[in-house]
């Protein structure tokens, strides 16, 4: 299962989307809405907030991904998510994300059954195919309730 391609998609880092996302996380920093403020901080264009690749949710099908992994969506929660940055994505980038299975662990649940931990790794590459952001997320399938 390790190495399995879960999904693949591309999206543009759009000015309006960055503004909308910054508002949604209640970050009033000028760099997210004003190109001049962004340039003053040394960015070539308006940068995206740290967790911006979350908007990939618009471009992929969570239920299909969980089904592909053979997990029961009613018992799946996201335990942790991490990002590593080569550089912040900026408006004008087109990011291509490719998400694969990096690790699978099974543990006995505290009340019987088995818990499954699936680590997914996504590389977001720009038009020059350089990696911009690496994302890792751990999905946890909780143990089936014993009846």
């Amino acid at each position, binding site marked *: 299962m390790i190495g399995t391609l879960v999904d693949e998609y591309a999206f543009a880092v759009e000015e309006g989307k960055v503004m909308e*996302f910054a508002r949604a996380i209640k970050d009033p*920093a000028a760099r997210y809405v004003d190109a001049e403020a962004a340039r003053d901080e040394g960015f070539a264009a308006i940068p995206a907030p*740290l967790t911006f690749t979350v*908007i990939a949710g618009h471009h992929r099908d969570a239920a299909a991904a969980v089904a592909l992994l053979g997990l029961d969506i009613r018992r799946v929660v996201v335990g942790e998510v991490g990002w590593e940055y080569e550089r912040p994505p900026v408006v004008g980038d087109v990011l291509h994300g490719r998400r694969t299975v990096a690790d699978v662990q099974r543990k006995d649940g505290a009340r019987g059954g088995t818990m499954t931990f699936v680590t997914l790794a996504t590389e977001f590459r720009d038009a020059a195919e350089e990696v911009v952001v690496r994302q890792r997320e751990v999905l946890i399938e909780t143990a089936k309730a014993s009846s």
Partner: protein
Amino acid sequence: MSAPVPEPEPPELTVGPITRTDIVRFAGAGGDFNPLHHDEEYARAAGFPSVFAMGQMQAGMLSRLATDWLGLAAIESYKVRFAAKVWPGDVLTLRVAEQERDGDAVEAVLEAVRQDGEVAVRAWVRAKGMNDR
């Protein structure tokens, strides 16, 4: 550009009370349309007292503490672990829980804490060359 040494730690930030509108706004921004986060009847039928925020909402809110403090360009990594749910009406305090410095590098643990003292989300951030890229 010179690299100003960041303040020992940033001031605490407070967000909230979180409203259903905040949650819906984040759903639209992020593309998370799981009905547990916007459909009250669905959430109750699933055994929850009301809708609740997706962890990524508070993870994003907490990221502001990191970028205000260390500078967006200096941050090399940001990782979050979801610990407790955030409900409508909750007020979150964003704060630095731990930090370690080595020259111009900083590693810190950040927390978003609910008004009842529960940590909703914890974040690990690593930064280098503050405001120098």
